[in-house]
């Protein structure tokens, strides 16, 4: 033990982890992104719509938590560039395994946003085809899932993102998390193994936090996936704080992406607040996996915007200056700035997209709240028939 005051020994020091790769959005020069072209702006427009929907989704549930209408919430605010861009890099037929900060990936993978908000996007998707099937129904069921309603994917038995959704006819294979972080890494690699066994070119992506890289399952699964060359992309959403633990107390290497070297696979660190940068990295990783060349480890650098869960006080561990830095690097602000600076969108249209997304979420939540709660007398089987 040291002589340091235990209250200040760790808690209020700036997180000495990896330097943040981007500047505050306000300091970024008002010129188009170097990669900007009509196509690139198409990608940006598409990602922007889903990122905004994800943001409004979280803001709505955060508010419900604060008013006591919801017993638990984990916010995805700040992760939207990484999650939406990653889900833009996969297709129907691929498998998606998510954490509790991945509403952006879920919404992008599940929905055709034009079906929910007609005219919000150009007719032709710039990056990927939307998932087939009934987006409105899926969005309503997703909302019911968050609210524990009977119509949710787990009929009220499982919390928020702890569910699966398979719609084989549309190639939708989404497996949710359990609370034991890192446990789904081998399961995700297992879906990739199924694809390899079946001779398909499908791939699996899995999101984890930087905290889960300390688990045994991270090593075991990534090692087997590398030895077997599984079509698997593991995305670390490194938001620098695991509950209240900073990266300096989580790992001693400079970059988690460097661990890939130890598995004999590519490892890439990317600014996770930059949707275009993430998209580029993920498209390369997915193409590599589809070609049969094995896994990629992606480390997306983010910042913690919220507590571990809403209502805990873990955010108080993040020094104010550091938190301020993350807020100034809001991924949505960056996308919107690029679209405005590029002359693609007006501020008025940006505002309209936000209003329409917020209304959609509010209306769907209202609808879900009026739907039946689970029948408490209904037994639920532990065995498949």
């Amino acid at each position, binding site marked *: 033990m040291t002589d340091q005051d235990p209250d200040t020994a760790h808690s209020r020091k700036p997180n000495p982890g990896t330097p943040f790769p981007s500047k505050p959005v306000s300091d970024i020069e008002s010129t188009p992104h170097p990669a900007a072209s009509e196509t690139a702006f198409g990608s940006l427009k598409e990602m922007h719509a889903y990122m905004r929907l994800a943001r409004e989704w979280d803001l709505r549930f955060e508010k419900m938590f604060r008013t006591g209408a919801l017993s638990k919430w984990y916010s995805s605010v700040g992760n939207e560039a990484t999650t939406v861009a990653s889900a833009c890099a996969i297709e129907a037929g691929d*498998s998606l395994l998510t954490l509790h900060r991945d509403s952006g990936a879920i919404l992008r993978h599940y929905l055709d946003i034009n079906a929910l908000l007609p005219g919000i996007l150009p007719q032709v998707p710039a990056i990927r085809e939307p998932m087939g099937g009934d987006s409105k129904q899926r969005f309503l069921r997703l909302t019911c899932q968050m609210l524990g309603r009977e119509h949710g*994917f*787990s009929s009220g*038995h*499982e919390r928020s993102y*702890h*569910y*699966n959704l*398979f719609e084989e006819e549309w190639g939708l*294979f989404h*497996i*949710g998390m*359990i609370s*034991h972080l890192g*446990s*789904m*890494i*081998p*399961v*995700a*690699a*297992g*879906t*990739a*193994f*199924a*694809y390899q*066994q*079946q001779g398909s070119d499908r791939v*699996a992506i899995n999101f984890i936090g930087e905290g889960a890289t300390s688990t*045994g*399952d991270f*090593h*075991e*699964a990534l*090692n*087997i996936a590398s*030895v*077997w060359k599984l079509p698997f992309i593991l995305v670390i959403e490194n938001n620098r704080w695991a509950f209240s633990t900073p990266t300096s107390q989580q790992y001693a290497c400079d970059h988690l992406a460097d661990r890939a070297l130890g598995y004999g696979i590519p490892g890439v660190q990317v600014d996770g607040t930059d949707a275009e940068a993430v998209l580029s990295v993920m498209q390369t990783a997915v193409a590599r996996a589809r070609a049969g060349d094995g896994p990629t480890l992606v480390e997306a650098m983010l910042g913690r915007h919220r507590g571990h869960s809403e209502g805990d006080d873990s955010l108080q561990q993040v020094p104010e200056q550091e938190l301020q830095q993350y807020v100034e690097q809001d991924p949505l602000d960056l996308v919107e700035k690029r679209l405005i600076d590029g002359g693609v969108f007006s501020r008025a249209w940006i505002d309209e997209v936000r209003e329409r997304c917020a209304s959609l979420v509010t209306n769907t939540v209202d609808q879900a709240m009026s739907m039946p709660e689970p029948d408490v007398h209904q037994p*639920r*089987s*532990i*065995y*498949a*028939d």
Partner: protein
Amino acid sequence: MQTDTSTESDDTLYIDAISAALADEMRADPSVVLMGQDIAGHGGAFKITRGFLEEFGDQRVRNTPIAESGTIGIAIGSSMLGIKPVVEMQFADFISCGFNQIVNVAAKMYWRTKHPVPLVIRLPGGGGMGAGAFHSQNIENWFLHTPGLKVVSPAYSGDAYRLLRAAIRDPNPVLYFEHKFLYRRERSPLQTAPVPDRILGESSILRSGTDITTVSWGWMTHRTLEAAEILSQEGIEVEVIDLPVLSPLDHRGIIASVEKTQRAAIIHEATCTGGFGAEIAARICDEAIWSLDAPVRRITYPDSPPPFHKGLEASRIPSPERICSELRQLLDV
């Protein structure tokens, strides 16, 4: 393959029954994939998969790194997308390294999501060979306490064959405990009845009796039958019930038998406290306590790890002599 089940041989070794069940199910269903440490070229620590690599190829017979949790997790994920994985633990004891994947991911998946996990984990377990604390344990109870798993414990070659094939066909995660002591000692005919497509609770009366009911599984069923034979010569008739399937538990047969004999003992090789014997005793007390003329007895391993020295180990495993002695006490003779 060394075993050809197409001809009805009289007797099959327990270990060969397991090999045959794996091979026959792999031939019948191309989605069956084996994973385990040293199972491919080497044929596994007990040679159960010897020759499989040649017949089924390295895509379906997968050597894994030493990573029980990773392997079981991969098996779970693949089972959700059409693969039927059978994972071999080199020794049952090593399953502790994969515990979380089994009890939290596999066992709860169907209840949580309604998505089946058709997974089999084979667990060579049990003592009697002086193999020490980490190659001899009987750990079925770790999993009997977890809803959502099926647990199988065959004592005979026929059950080993039938239940392994049924386990592979079952849409649920099945833990298949095979007893190493029986591998090359138990020899009996394979059954010719059609293989069921799932594991159901089953109990079977191997010997009828009127004086006391015993409940056992795995190796202990053989020792209980030896004890029953000795006691029969003394005029004591033991009704011996074997449980080839521990979960789901078919306790109705046990209750019916106890109502007839009015006495009961549970014999298991696993340690005593919190063991499955306690559960069976509780069921008997719940449903048949007014029929009982004596306390329900558990005849088990002491609450300690398996020692290395063969004599030390033998002193801990319930022997036919000890079973006889304890049953005589219950009968007050």
